[in-house]
């Protein structure tokens, strides 16, 4: 690979991506940053996919980026394209699909080092798949049930001794009545499951792990950044995302067996980065809850001083 430029694909105001850019500039990397929200207004593409040695270029705010000059990509939550407000909905849909296949197809076809490749990130987003792969990689995984059958949910509830939780299978975010609402992990009773609405779509139920604390384990390449998340309220104990003000963070060590497991997990999905969530029981056992292949990490780096941005930058500038 002859490229030397690190391409950052992120929203213009993404502060977490800024941390990576700062770390890249500190090691004198050549950085180019684009925001897909600029497409097609101020982000242009001209590509010739069949020409392997000269695949084309991007132009962003006057800077031309030769695709052949790119060595690696940091891709973090790219934005939707921005089309003229006068476009009708069918026109926008057409333009979105064409641009997705065009810009997305060109970029994802390049032989760059990605953190991480969009196809891998997409595949790793399915929670049932995460649970299966985590089990295959030797991690402890709570008993889980995905179902739209209420009777199965009630049977599962009777089997799990410590109780159960409901958690969403995807983002768990909905807008209604002009408000954003989030589905946090919620503890359930058997009575809660006597509800025909379970049959209306898929639901994920999981055994409740009686934990001492949670761990956010951010993995970059072979480097593990583990942080114990201590909950200061009953709500935060069930889902720490629901009460950030009640949390205390403490850097901790990653047990060897967990380190081996998460490395195998990332290899299985073809990922370099993973934001893992574990619950740790009083006997020191780590239980895999999920891994977000594009999870947030900027805030926890800031809280703890862990050099996560620098680790990502190291991976991006690493020779192929």
């Amino acid at each position, binding site marked *: 690979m002859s490229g030397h430029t690190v391409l950052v694909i992120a929203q213009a105001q993404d502060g977490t991506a800024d941390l990576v850019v700062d770390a890249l500039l500190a090691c004198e990397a050549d950085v180019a940053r684009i925001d897909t929200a600029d497409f097609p207004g101020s982000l242009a593409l001209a590509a010739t996919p069949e020409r392997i040695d000269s695949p084309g270029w991007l132009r962003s705010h006057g800077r031309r980026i030769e695709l052949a000059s790119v060595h690696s990509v940091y891709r973090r939550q790219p934005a939707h394209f921005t089309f003229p407000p006068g476009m009708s909905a069918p026109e926008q849909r057409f333009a979105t699909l064409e641009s997705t*296949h065009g810009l997305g197809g060109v970029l994802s076809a390049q032989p760059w080092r990605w953190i991480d490749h969009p196809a891998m990130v997409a595949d790793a*987003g399915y929670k049932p798949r995460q649970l299966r792969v985590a089990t295959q990689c030797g991690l402890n995984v709570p008993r889980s049930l995905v179902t739209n059958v209420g009777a199965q949910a009630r049977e599962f509830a009777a089997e799990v001794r410590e109780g159960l939780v409901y958690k969403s299978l995807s983002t768990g975010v909905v807008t209604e009545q002009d408000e954003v609402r989030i589905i946090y992990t919620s503890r359930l009773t058997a009575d809660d499951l006597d509800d025909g609405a*379970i049959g209306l779509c898929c639901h994920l139920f999981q055994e409740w792990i009686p934990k001492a604390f949670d761990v956010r384990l951010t993995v970059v390449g072979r480097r593990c950044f583990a942080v114990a998340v201590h909950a200061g309220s009953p709500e935060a104990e069930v889902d720490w995302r629901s009460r950030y003000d009640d949390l205390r963070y403490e850097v901790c060590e990653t047990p060897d067996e967990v380190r081996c497991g998460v490395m195998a997990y990332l290899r299985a999905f073809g990922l370099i980065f993973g934001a893992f969530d574990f619950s740790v029981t009083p006997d020191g056992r780590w239980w895999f809850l999920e891994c977000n292949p594009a999870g947030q990490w900027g805030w926890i780096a800031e809280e703890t001083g862990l050099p996560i941005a620098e680790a990502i930058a190291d991976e991006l500038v690493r020779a192929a």
Partner: protein
Amino acid sequence: MTQPAPGAPDPLMPVTSRFPLSPSGGRLIPSSAVPSGATTRPFGLRYAVKPAQCGKRSKKPTNKTRTIPTKITPDGQGAGYEPDTEHYVEMDEE
């Protein structure tokens, strides 16, 4: 039947969902729709709540931690973006 290798491209996930958006997307479409009712509202939505507000002591993860864009341009200046007016998710997930 041969099992697909973990990490292999997923036939259930169309390419249009893979790029440029993350699997779950980063932007929410505002909606004024109201909950439909007990017989048609999915069980999981019973547990949808307003996100907690950011506190003083503990920072909340967000995509939008800066108000001034820091996009790199040839002259080293910000590109002069207008602030986003869309709803963005401020949570740990994408």
